[in-house]
Every structure is written in C-alpha cells, then in structure tokens.
C-alpha cells in the first residue's frame, strides 16, 4: 500500500471539511446550514465501512475537532458526534457491505441515531430543549445526499485494492 493510498481518505475528508466551511456566497435555503458539518461525516462513514484501516478512530476525532474549530462551535461537539457515527458505521458494516441498497439503509439508520444523539448533546449543552427540526432536516438532506457521495467516492474506494484469491477458470 502506497502512502498516497493510505492518506487518500484523510485527504478527501479534509478537503470536504474545508470546503464546507468556506464562504461560497451561495444563499442556502433556511435551515440547510446545519447540514454542512454532516457532509464530512458522509465521507467518513463511507470510508469506515469500506476501508476501516484507513479511517481510524483518532483520525475521525481529529476531523471532528477541525470541524469544531471551523464551525466556531463548542470544542468536542463534532468530535463526539463523529465518534458516535464511527461506532454506528462499524456496527452496521457487515450489513452495509451486502448491496448498495443495504449500505444506504445502514447509513440512514446510523444517521437517525446520530440525529437523536445530536439533539440530546445539544440540549444538554444549551441546558434547554433544542429545536429538533433543523437536525431532522439536516439528517434527511444528508440521507438524500448519500447516494451522490457514494457514487463520487466509488472510484476512489477501488484505488490501491489488490486482487484477492486469484482463480483460474477454464476457458475464461
């Protein structure tokens, strides 16, 4: 495995993290700004499911901290959310690898749990019941965005993979 392949997941997630923090000058629909920190998570989820060795927990934690700094939120919030997402992605990995549909379903399930965790942590932090609607909207939007990201990442996921168990078939 080359270094380029090893750092590819980190590079893609970092690029998306920085891109989501930049002022793009685009008027987003109300409530959609909360979606932006979830975009790096979609990438993290896909990498954790498909290449867990290249997306270890410490890297997920550091990316979460970076999002905290860039989003000016409390330090540790997105680190915690991403780590919970990491646990969810690891637990649903076997199911997610059966087919594209099951991968999307596993992602949706993880994100729903993540939405509840987000709301709970946010309410605990603010010491008041947080508004659940933006979180639900962002969760739904991220679930909708997942197939597109999966499609974009599909070629990158194949980079560096070595053929396993080569078999010779007669007349093949």
């Amino acid at each position, binding site marked *: 495995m080359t270094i380029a392949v090893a750092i590819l997941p980190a590079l893609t997630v970092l690029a998306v993290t920085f891109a989501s923090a*930049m002022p793009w000058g685009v008027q987003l629909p109300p409530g959609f700004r909360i979606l932006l920190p979830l975009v790096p998570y979609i990438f993290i989820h896909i990498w954790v499911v498909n290449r867990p060795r290249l997306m270890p*927990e410490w890297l997920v934690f550091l990316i979460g901290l970076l999002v905290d700094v860039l989003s000016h939120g409390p330090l540790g919030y997105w680190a915690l959310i991403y780590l919970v997402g990491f646990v969810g992605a690891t637990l649903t990995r076997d199911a997610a690898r059966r087919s594209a549909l099951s991968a999307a379903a596993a992602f949706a399930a993880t994100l729903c749990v993540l939405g509840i965790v987000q709301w709970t942590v946010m309410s605990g932090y603010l010491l008041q019941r947080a508004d659940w609607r933006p979180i639900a909207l962002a969760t739904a939007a991220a679930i909708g965005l997942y197939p597109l990201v999966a499609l974009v990442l599909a070629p990158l996921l194949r980079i560096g993979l070595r053929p396993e168990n*080569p078999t010779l078939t007669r007349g093949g």
Partner: protein
Amino acid sequence: MSRLNDDTYSCRGAVRRAPGRFSALLFVLLFAAVALLALSRLQHAYVTDLRLRLTEAMLPALHAASVTLQPFRRLGRQATAYFDQFAELDRLRAENQRLKSWEWRAQELERRMSALAQLARVVEEPALHFITARVVTDASGPFVRSAMLRGGRDQGVRSGYPVISADGLVGRIVESGARASRVLLFTDLNSRIPVLVGPAQVRAIIVGDNGPYPRLAYLSPNSRIEPGDEVYTSGVGGLYPRGLRIGTAAEEAGSYRVVPHARLDELDFVSVLFFDTPTSELVEDDRSPPREQRGRRSVAGRPDERPAGQP
C-alpha cells in the same frame, strides 16, 4: 481472472473489528470529546485560547482557500443574477422611482436638520473609524451563527465592536485574536439587540434563534408595526451606535420577525466599526490604543470608504 474484494485491507486477522468490540483508544477519545465539550460549556480560558490559536494557525490556509474560491463565488452570484435579472430589473426600476422622490425629501430634511441642530447646539456624534476585512470562514454548526474575519487586535479590532456589510448590520465581534476575530451574527441564539422599528420608532429587542429571520420581542401591546417597516439599532445599552440598518419587519402568525438586509450567507468583505461602548471609556484600560491613534485602515487592501451600513 481475478476478483476485487474490498475486504483486502479490512479483513486481515486482528485488524477486522467484530461488531461490539472496539479499541480502548475509542473510549479514551470519546471521553476526551465529552471533557472538551464540558470545558467549552464552562467557557474555560484554556479552551477559548486553544480555539483562537488553532484558528490563527489555520488562517493563512483559510485565507488562501477563500481567495481561491473568489471566482466560484462570483460565478455563483452571476448565475443567480442571470436567472433573476428580469425580476431584478423591474424591482430596480420601481426602487429607482421611489428613491428619486426620497432624494429630494432627504435633501430638504437634511437642511432642516442642520438648521435645528445649530439652533439647539447639539453635541456632534464622533466620526466612526473602521477597517474592512475579508470573511475567511462561515460557521455552519447547530450552535452558533458566526464568521471568522482576517483582522484582529493587531489591526485594532476588539471584542464588542459592531460589524456591518454594505447592506446592513452583520453582528459584533465576540473574540479577537492577534490576526483574526470572530463575529457573532445577529441571527445567533445568543444575540440580543435593542432596536427601533418603523417611522413610529417602536422600541423592541431583536432576539436571534439561529434561524434566518430573528424575532422582534418585548414589543409594547399597543405598538404599531407595519410589515416592511425599517428596523435599525436604537443605541440603547451602548453596544451599537444608533441608526445602523438591520432589516425590515415581517409579520408571522401574530408575531414579528426581521428580514435582514445583509446577506449573511454571502458575506465576503465586512467593516468593523471602532465603536466603544460610551460607558467603557469610564473604565478604559491601558491595553487599547487611544481613539485618535486609530486611523482608517483597510486590512483587505480595499480603498478606504465610508461603510455603507453606517448612517
């Protein structure tokens, strides 16, 4: 013939994680995240300082990225303008007609105002100095609505200074490092601004709720507000100078909200007004330079001009 298998890396012996079995490092990191969150909640000085240091360390990269994005930003605006141009043209024509009649009226009012000020011997408001700085990041989390500016204490920016764009009020500085500072947008959950609404000058407070349209609170029961009335800072409390444009009032299910003039999602350059709370001069410490020493500067190298949101 070979078969590609995604498990090539993930299934090698001990590396593969069986569901339910996680490394000790994960629990350490989860604990660290919760601890950081708790320290952030307590607004521990170490965490605040750490954040500022991290942001300042990333500032050159963020600035370079934001400059690189400039053509994309322009492209986005042009695309939006292209689709809206016919409606925009009609709107501008109508606005131009309205403004022509207002121009004459404003000149007349200005003349009368200056005559009255002379008669009453009104104390002149000091001119506001300002700097113009580029927005390098937009906050997009569930907690805050803020933006990071490339300009900090070295340029004279201090916590509490109001920030405006060409269209109107943006917010105020809440953290200032040596070369970067953070603006809390007035739509943020923690933002409260005393304002005046409409020609009747109805007093109210703009309360941010992290949504795009903050609400108008603490209105008196008999207050008369019409949708479309101008909302501007009242100057009460001394955090903001009087008369900074904020937006227009809009009615929503019996309550009122404010539609901001400033496009808070499209901030590019903003001006920081060197406006000290009048009472702060009574307890002014030695850290800040005297007001007369702070000249007009432009961090982003823009020509120095009067900020548009200033009255």
